[in-house]
């Protein structure tokens, strides 16, 4: 099973040179730590910044400089600041190439649910609905099962969804999976020591296993 850091590390391998990337709150934020230095990429913060840098040292903290998770941040060289309408113009207009975000559930046709549990939890969708409706490539980072052991890779989402037919790839603590355009989760890689059978067992939606499934190497 992968740790959160390893999920982030695995997702970082999906990043391509020259990409503009939006990282969601949680595991996705960690991805930044694993992007190889030789790649030139730019991280977007939907509250109005292109070029997120590392967290500031204590003496550099600026309350007027935060990311979408409200964390204090810094800017890299070549950064640019803008307003929220411009920020989502970038997102909606397809200028952000890659969105990495967390999810409560993903369905086998690529639907995603991550903003609401009716009657229990309403955190709001924030920018997630815009991101999943717009980016050309959407990768989900999440645990394969919920805390009570239920699969989060489903035939259909049971929770209110955030977007339809949008997720392209999922990296969980157990596996890397792609959503087939025809429906179904195509198993691409196994976490070290995790069997295809275990992944099958913990995947409620249709799992497509073709040929030998390689184990991830870290």
């Amino acid at each position, binding site marked *: 099973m992968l740790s959160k850091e390893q999920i982030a590390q695995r997702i970082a391998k999906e990043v391509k040179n020259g990409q503009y990337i939006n990282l969601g709150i949680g595991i996705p934020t960690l991805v930044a730590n694993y992007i190889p230095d030789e790649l030139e990429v730019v991280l977007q913060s939907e509250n109005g910044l292109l070029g997120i840098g590392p967290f500031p040292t204590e003496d550099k903290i600026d309350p007027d400089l935060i990311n979408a998770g409200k964390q*204090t941040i810094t800017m890299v060289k070549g950064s640019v600041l803008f307003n929220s309408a411009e920020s989502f113009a970038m997102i909606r207009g397809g200028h952000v190439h890659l969105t990495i975000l967390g999810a409560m559930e993903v369905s086998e046709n690529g639907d995603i649910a991550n903003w609401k549990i009716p009657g229990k939890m309403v955190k709001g969708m924030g920018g997630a609905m815009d991101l999943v*409706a717009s980016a050309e490539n959407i990768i989900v980072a999440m645990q394969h099962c919920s805390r009570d052991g239920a699969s989060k890779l489903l035939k259909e989402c049971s929770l209110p969804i955030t977007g339809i037919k949008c997720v392209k790839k999922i990296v969980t603590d157990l596996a890397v999976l792609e959503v087939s355009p025809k429906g179904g989760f195509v198993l691409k890689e196994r976490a070290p020591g995790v069997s295809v059978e275990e992944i099958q067992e913990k995947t409620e939606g249709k799992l497509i296993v073709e040929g030998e499934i390689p184990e991830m190497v870290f």
Partner: protein
Amino acid sequence: MINKTVKDAKEAVADIPSGAFLMMGGFGLSGIPENCISALLEKGIKDLTIVSNNAGVDDFGIGLLLKKKMVKKMISSYVGENAEFERQLLSGELEVDLIPQGTLAERVRAGGAGIPAFFTPAGVGTEVAEGKEIREFDGKLYLMERWLRADFSLVKAWKGDTAGNLIFKGTARNFNPMMAAAGKICIAEVEELVPAGELNPNEIHTPGIYVQRIFEGKNYEKRIEQRTVSQAKS
């Protein structure tokens, strides 16, 4: 040049009545109109509708207005870390319209720009789409969304001049420029107010035409929600 200066927050919000439809700039606690919020708290009006991306935290920002039960309805994209907001929402005390953040930004922008409706892909196939017109353009589905306009918009800038021109700082800009334009009366509070002519015309984020009242605010707390630091490298 037209002079928009008023004395302080109290004077600026004096005519905001109970039941008013307001917009407030800010993302989390960054770029919120602290002085105006304090002045509203003192006025103690009620039944406000507030458009704001977030609703502050329990004891700061719009959270203070919620706690004092001054708010009838919030139009926001993220409840986030405000427990009182979530409690009032789940109990039904507070009406809440949750809107995708980009749709919210664009609806406010449309309000200021005289665009009564536009199409966006955000929310297609979700409960956000309920009751809305759906239309296909070039093979992709979109929702029709309406503009948002307010009786008063309360915004916070870094620098401003007496003509109402505004410059924001860092990510404290966020929703402020669109809201400035979408309020019938826009009240701008700034950290530093300068005479018209001192700001570089090429560096202004919000043209003064959108701002009806401006004043220099006091005692900005600028509270940080998530203080995250990295260790200094030696």
